[in-house]
């Protein structure tokens, strides 16, 4: 038994999908084979910004192996309309134009046509036979340049919305918003130390190992089935219905196993193209992306410019903070600047705050969600400034954070008031960690060492629709169907909550992720919501099963149902100790008293729970001669509410840290002057390997989330938030030089040290 009296929650069973995954039997999108299968690929723009004057597909269509070619003209052109697709509100016309460019291409790699052929090689050959006539336009890829008057305009009909009102100004700034609380000027006047700094971050990609794929079959009855890798099958269904203007009932999405998503596998790219090609040919059509297509043609997370100013009194109280945040949306509006603004000062209790956010279009791929979207950029700025203030005041940076930490009742600058949260508990756990209390030994090899800390916040989506459908087998095991695709061990974490509720073992539950025709609507696996939200539904399902089993027991024992208790996994009749049985014992008889036992439950929690906080500690060693930063030790501390499966909580924490380290030290889209990405491969876009990292140590703090029956807080996203800032602070501690531009790669670090005498 684990702590809190739980039998299953808090234990570490082997995941249900584990064996199939490690033995290669699990089915991914690229494994799909169907009779008569054709293979498709995409023609992409070589220009970052151009008007499409003409697309001539005749040469491609004349190729003997080609079966169909499609362009934007095969898509219904739809009006401006906003839709909620899980992690973001999306304009459907933009979504359609992003799938196949209409009128203009807005980034290099923008899809302009799709081809289906008898095999992939023919399809690739045929793509070269599509003749696109472009009028090349001036382009802009940097966020500040795109905001300038006179910058090349991506959308001639887009007027800037400012403070909620549409203005007459046509610019690349889609939206400017402001959150204000108190009077920042007064707050800075009270402060004894005020620090204001500028920061830049570059475009980075989620880097999931499985590239995008979709196999579509549009049958003779007009029923469309798509097998795909996605975080949200129902979101794909909604997007397909909207983009193709067809009823949702005509679309079935079959989610396959997913080789990583991190927010990047919610929007559709290939799915509508494969569907159109299948409609034209009458055959199933399979499409998969290459790695460079993933880099150039999907949704990375934005580059950004931030200016942050913070003030504190000499006794260490934060009095005011302001932020100017300009995020690249990419080709169409919708950067995560809003989310970044909601997170930027949230670990702190600051009375006077102003945040200005700008959502800016640039000639780069339309950005998409990436693990706590917008928050990592924000924390890089805030947490570096907090480090500098702590240093000026001569106080320990973690003690400063504890003193100014947000708690229940603290108001965020964007409005909401925190319920019970674990911000201070997490920071205190970092402060008291063996790592933080240990001293950092000097390097013996002429390199310099330093330690840095940083904190981070992510909202967590404490809501969303989830459905679960179960049937009880006569042996007492349970088949559990769910609509949440399993990216990070959620089959296990959800099954464990059902098992806990009804007194079974995790292995007694057989979880299945099923297609959209087989389960009720379930929101995306995103926003750190799945173990929370679908787990919430699992708990409710358990309650429903207990009620149903009491009814069955009532019939079997011929006693009133309300006189039957369920405790410690055993049903018993209050007035007769003989009348008792475990869930499994009852299950073997229950079918005789009313047919198979099944239950279907759907839930939609109100979203009132508190968010996730993390504090990280890192020791680095910097080679001043090469500029290379090696990580000696890394500890991530995080409030998980209640850790359902501690190994997977730790796995999420470690995975988030690793991605944050990559973002901090190496990863970036490097652009040529012509607006093309130079490094669209995993060789030149350097994600860290295991050899670049030490074991990431984890400390789980558990401050239960009051809006969940077991206290679950989502854990997947917040661990990516602190690493770049923690690394920058550690590099400063080692070298005396502050780095305010990401990534802090060897050439940049070496240059910064040379320029600043570090």
């Amino acid at each position: 038994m684990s702590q809190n009296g739980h039998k299953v929650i808090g234990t570490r069973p082997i995941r249900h999908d584990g064996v199939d995954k490690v033995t290669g039997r699990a089915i991914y999108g690229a494994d799909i084979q169907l009779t008569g299968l054709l293979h498709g690929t995409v023609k992409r723009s070589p220009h970052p910004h151009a008007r499409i004057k003409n697309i001539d597909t005749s040469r491609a269509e004349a190729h003997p192996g080609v079966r169909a070619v499609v362009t934007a003209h095969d898509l219904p052109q739809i009006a401006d309309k906003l839709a909620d697709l899980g992690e973001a509100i999306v304009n459907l016309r933009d979504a359609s134009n992003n799938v196949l460019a209409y009128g203009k291409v807005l980034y290099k790699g923008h899809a302009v046509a799709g081809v289906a052929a008898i095999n992939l090689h023919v399809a690739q050959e045929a793509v070269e036979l599509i003749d696109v006539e472009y009028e090349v336009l001036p382009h802009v890829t940097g966020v500040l340049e795109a905001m300038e008057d006179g910058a090349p305009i991506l959308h001639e009909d887009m007027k800037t919305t400012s403070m909620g009102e549409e203005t007459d100004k046509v610019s690349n700034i889609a939206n400017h918003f402001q959150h204000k609380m108190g009077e920042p000027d007064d707050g800075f006047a009270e402060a004894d130390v005020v620090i204001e700094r500028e920061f830049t971050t570059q475009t980075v990609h989620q880097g999931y190992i499985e590239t995008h794929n979709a196999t579509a079959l549009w049958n003779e009855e007009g029923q469309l089935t798509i097998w795909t890798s996605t975080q949200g099958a129902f979101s794909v269904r909604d997007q397909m219905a909207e983009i193709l203007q067809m009823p949702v009932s005509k679309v079935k999405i079959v989610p396959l196993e997913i080789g990583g998503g991190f927010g990047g596998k919610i929007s559709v790219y290939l799915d509508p193209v494969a569907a159109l090609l299948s409609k034209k040919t009458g055959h199933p059509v399979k499409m998969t992306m290459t790695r460079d297509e993933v880099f150039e043609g999907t949704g990375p997370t934005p580059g950004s410019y931030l200016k942050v100013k913070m003030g504190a009194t000499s006794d260490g109280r934060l009095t005011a903070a302001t932020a100017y945040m300009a995020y690249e949306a990419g080709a169409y509006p919708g950067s995560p600047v809003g989310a970044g603004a909601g997170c930027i000062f949230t670990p702190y209790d600051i009375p006077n705050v102003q945040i200005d956010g700008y959502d800016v279009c640039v000639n780069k791929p339309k950005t998409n969600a990436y693990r706590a979207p917008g928050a990592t950029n924000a924390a890089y700025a805030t947490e570096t400034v907090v480090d500098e203030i702590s240093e000026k005041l001569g106080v320990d940076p973690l003690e400063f954070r504890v003193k100014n930490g947000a708690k229940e009742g603290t108001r965020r600058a964007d409005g909401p008031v925190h319920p019970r949260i674990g911000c201070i508990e997490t920071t205190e756990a970092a402060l008291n960690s063996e790592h933080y209390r240990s001293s950092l030994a000097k390097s013996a090899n002429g390199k310099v060492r330093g330690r840095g800390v940083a904190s981070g916040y992510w909202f967590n989506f404490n809501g969303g629709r989830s459905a679960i459908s179960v049937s009880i087998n006569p042996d007492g095991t349970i088949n559990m169907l769910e609509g949440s695709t399993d990216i990070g061990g959620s089959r296990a974490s959800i099954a464990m909550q059902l098992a806990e509720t009804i007194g079974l073992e995790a292995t007694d539950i057989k979880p299945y992720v099923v297609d959209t025709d087989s389960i009720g609507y379930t929101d995306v696996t995103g926003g750190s919501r799945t173990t929370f939200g679908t787990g919430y539904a699992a708990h409710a399902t358990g309650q429903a099963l207990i009620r149903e089993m009491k009814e069955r027991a009532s019939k079997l024992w011929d006693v009133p149902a309300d006189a039957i208790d369920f405790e410690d996994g055993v049903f018993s009749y209050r007035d007769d100790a003989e009348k008792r049985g475990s869930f499994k014992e009852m299950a073997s008889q229950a079918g005789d008293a009313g047919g198979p036992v099944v239950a279907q439950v759907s839930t939609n929690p109100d979203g009132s729970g508190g968010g996730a906080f993390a504090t990280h500690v890192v020791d680095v060693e910097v080679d001043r001669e090469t500029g290379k930063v090696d990580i000696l030790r890394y500890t991530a501390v995080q409030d998980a509410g209640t850790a359902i499966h501690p190994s997977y909580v730790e796995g999420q924490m470690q995975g988030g840290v690793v991605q944050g380290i990559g973002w901090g030290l190496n990863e970036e889209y490097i652009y040529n002057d012509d607006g093309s990405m130079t490094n669209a491969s995993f060789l030149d876009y350097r994600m860290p390997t295991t050899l670049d990292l030490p074991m990431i140590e984890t400390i789980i703090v558990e401050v239960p989330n009051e809006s969940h029956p077991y206290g679950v807080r989502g854990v997947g996203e917040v661990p990516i938030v602190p690493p770049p800032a923690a690394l920058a602070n550690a590099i400063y501690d080692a070298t005396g030089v502050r780095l305010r531009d990401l990534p802090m790669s060897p050439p940049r670090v070496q240059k910064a040290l040379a320029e600043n005498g570090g």
Partner: protein
Amino acid sequence: MRNFSYVNATSIEQVPSLLGRSWDDAVVMAGGTDLVGEMKDYAAVPKRVVNLKSIEGLDYIRQDDAGLRIGALTTLTDVLENSAVSQELPVLHQAVSVIASPQIRNMATLAGNILQRPRCWYYRSEDFPCLKKGGARCYAVGGVNTYHAIFGSGPSYIVHPSDAAPALMALGATVHVHGPRGGDEVLMDDFFTMPEMNIRRENILRPNEIVTEISIPKPEANSKGMFLKVRERESIDFALVSLAAQMTVVNGTCERASLVLGGVAPIPWRAVEAEDYLRGRRITEARAESAAEAAVEDAAPMPHNGYKVEIAKNLVKQAVQALAS
């Protein structure tokens, strides 16, 4: 990747006739770890691929009094695990140990490693018809040249990607070549060619010639070697700068130094000035530093790669001091 025909060669003698007079006709494949990527990126578009792995007897490491002979099809893993290499040729052993990843080393051959094509991102992108592909310009000039050459004066600014080549050159190795007129031997120092001599390729091989063996003379007594590689990532990454160093030091005095830099020039770059400076000198920290300065005397960095000069200098100083102690 474009369509191509595939031929299994069965003898060395047969290969020249299977190849053509032009690089566009046919290419050879051994491990394929570089070639397949090149073909996928349309940097190589051969009509025919001639497989060499079907030739028997090219996979060997033989030791005799003169030194070591390594067959062209010997994998990097076999080189790495060979005890003669690890005991007597640490510079080669260390160089091979930091190439790519274990999976790639299991496939890739030693000859293939020294014959790798440039890793320049303009060369590897089908969007840039650069000099190396018969185009009109080197896109590194005026482009993002962070990872390009600091030595040589163009017109192409690629860097030679091999880790094994600087080590073999530092050891004075010889390349055995087979062509239509039979076999030939070329010193590694004469094997690689600068862009002004041969813009499309990085060595003297003609389209119908192959490498069959690499032989390495036994290092002289009192000679020590080491390989240093600076890269951004600890695995699956090419050198920003590497250094293969082999030095003969007697009583603290350098009798002979062989210093070859990688990742800094279109070919493995022998630091002749540093070698000349060190010859006959007692090694001190100041002299190691002077050698380092001499090694980069002719460096002409591009706008984004000045950092490589510093790294090259530091590696030379570090190696000279380590090998003299």
